[in-house]
């Protein structure tokens, strides 16, 4: 509770908007987040991926100042999340994976409630209400109870509420979980619009296609951040495609048979099913034609082509390596 409501720090532009250094959180004997270090620069869209229970929500909660880190430090907009979590809260917006607005209150009542919580005066409140309505379009249902909105519109309203105080950083914990593809795309369009306005975003997600849209991604697995970087840099990483190897996509009539054969073929480092194709990582000395003949013998229609790894390939390879290391 700062009496003047202002943050006592230099207003020099902080290019590293979010910083985490060795952030660790334990719940009893369970380590939910282990030594996570990363930085997010202004106006970036940072996507955090990882399976359920890997520590995504715990990490986001620590950065938002609602969960004390067991070890390590972090800052948001230059404010230490350990020393002054309340100052962090004034300047961030947070949207959780669960719909957490008041279902019995109308759209406008929810917006007004959050405006009051952030202490906006009447004029600013009106101005911001208009701004977030223009951005999200929730003005269409202004008097409808929030609980009566569809999934996609609920998320838009949650976003509108999270933006009512014009935060500089927005934390979104699986914002698109459980909403339809159209609403999902619309929400991402909104996030890009915000990013252009200079808002920094920290998004957790399950969807690989969403990860591809982020400027930076991190992959958290078994409480550790095992991949960090721009999607293109990650794909080009030597850990993913080691020197002297190539990646192919094989299209054939019996992909499961091909997969089994691939795994038994010397020189094949990795093979994975992708729909009705097989992705294979093989030593560069193996010729594509020979590989195709080995995997799909006698199939005339079968084809093979060199491909770049997807983000999913990246995460699969890195989590396998991590599992081997921790075993």
């Amino acid at each position, binding site marked *: 509770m700062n009496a003047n409501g202002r943050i006592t720090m230099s207003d020099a532009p902080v290019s590293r908007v979010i910083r985490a250094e060795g952030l660790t959180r334990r719940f009893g004997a369970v380590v939910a987040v282990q030594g996570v270090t990363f930085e997010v620069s202004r106006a970036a869209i940072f996507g955090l991926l990882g399976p359920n229970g890997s520590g995504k929500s715990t990490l986001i909660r620590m950065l*938002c*100042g*609602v969960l004390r880190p067991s070890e390590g430090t972090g800052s948001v907009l230059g404010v230490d999340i350990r020393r002054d979590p309340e100052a962090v809260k*004034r300047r961030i917006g947070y949207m*959780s994976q669960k719909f957490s607005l008041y279902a019995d*209150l109308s759209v406008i009542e929810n917006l007004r409630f959050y405006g*009051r*919580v952030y202490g906006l005066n009447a004029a600013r409140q009106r101005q911001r209400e208009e701004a977030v309505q223009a951005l999200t379009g929730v003005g269409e249902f202004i008097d409808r109870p929030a609980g009566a909105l569809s999934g996609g519109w609920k998320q838009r309203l949650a976003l509108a509420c999270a933006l009512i105080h014009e935060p500089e950083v927005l934390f979104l914990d699986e914002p698109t979980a459980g909403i339809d593809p159209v609403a999902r795309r619309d929400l991402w369009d909104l996030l890009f619009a915000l990013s252009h306005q200079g808002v920094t975003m920290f998004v957790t997600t399950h969807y690989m296609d969403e990860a591809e849209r982020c400027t930076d991604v991190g992959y958290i697995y078994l409480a550790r951040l095992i991949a960090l970087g721009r999607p293109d840099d990650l794909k080009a990483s030597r850990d993913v495609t080691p020197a002297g190897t190539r990646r192919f996509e094989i299209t054939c009539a019996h992909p499961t048979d091909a997969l089994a054969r691939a795994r038994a073929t010397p020189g094949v480092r990795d093979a994975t099913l992708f729909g009705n194709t097989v992705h294979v990582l093989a030593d560069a000395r193996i010729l594509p034609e020979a590989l195709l003949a080995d995997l799909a013998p006698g199939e005339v229609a079968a084809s093979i082509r060199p491909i770049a790894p997807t983000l999913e390939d990246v995460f699969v390879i890195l989590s396998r390596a991590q599992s081997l290391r921790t075993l």
Partner: protein
Amino acid sequence: MNGFLAILLKEFAHIRRERMTIFFTFVVPALQLTIFGYAIDVTIDHIPLVVLDLDGSQQSRGLVEAMVNTRAFTVSQRVQDLDSLRRALSSGRAKAGVVIPVEYSERLLRGEQAQVQVLIDGSDSQVATTALNTVGLLATQLSIRRGQAMAEVTQQAPARDPEGRPAQPIDLRPRLLYNPDLESSHFFVPGLIGIILQLVLLFLTSFSIVRERELGTLEQLFVTPVSRAGLLFGKLLPYAIMAFGEMLIVLVLMVAVFGVRIQGSMLLLAALSALFIVTALGLGLLISTIAKTQLQAIQIAFLIMMPSVLLSGFMFPRAEMPTPIYWIGAVLPVTYFIEILRGIILRNADAIDLVPHVAGLAACCVVILTLSLSRFRKQLA
């Protein structure tokens, strides 16, 4: 107090939308008071009595009439033999039976002791005790009356009243204060106010917080700059105001329906009720810091309500409880509040009379608030 007004207005908006809350706060207590106030009646009268009159004389009929005149008994059945009398008792149609022997009136005339057997169903101890006491008292009274008649005849009396008539040597004159008609509603209704107030406050406050935790809105609030004080006062004040309104309704009902007049100071009553309301809000808050779901909140609230009803002195006098049970009552704030309510409403007790109870309630208040406030953090897990 950052965010206090926002939370307060929002909470009132919830209450306005949620008709059940209003119903639960204002209508249910009024119904409870009326129903319980009438139902809880410990004065036992009109115990069904089965009569076997083997004498059939004017004297024996006079005895039965005397029993009925005590209002403790009503004759439910007259039988001609002992078997039927036993049957009436074992079937539960009668709770007491009287057997007047053949020679009842003759023995009285001869100046011999006449024995009358009264059989009492002891399975309901309260009914049995009443029957036992009434019968004993009646026997003494009837005997004294005969003694007085005898004294008139012999001109010898153990004592005489100022008019010179024979009288009892010792005249104990009980006078009933505060509740001269021994209406049990006068005893129960003030206590019931405390019980109902606690019931409503525990449920409303613990629910209003646990519901937000379940919905995830509490987590959302934690991420905002709303202060802990603003959050707490904003959430609890509406329920404190509602509890006060409820208290007024229940007091009006008490006066209007049960005719229990408030003898003491209204101001003192209001001040001490406010203290109790704050304590009960703290208790509700404490529940909400323990319970993760609304179901758990209900269970914990019942865990507190049960001893509050049974061990607080609301139903049974605490002085007669075994020591460990007595001390359980001593840690319940409602125990002290019930004493305060009865004191002010029935006995015109003033602040000095109530010092021990006010001290007890204040101590409960401090402990509960300290505990619940230290447990309620604007942090997760």
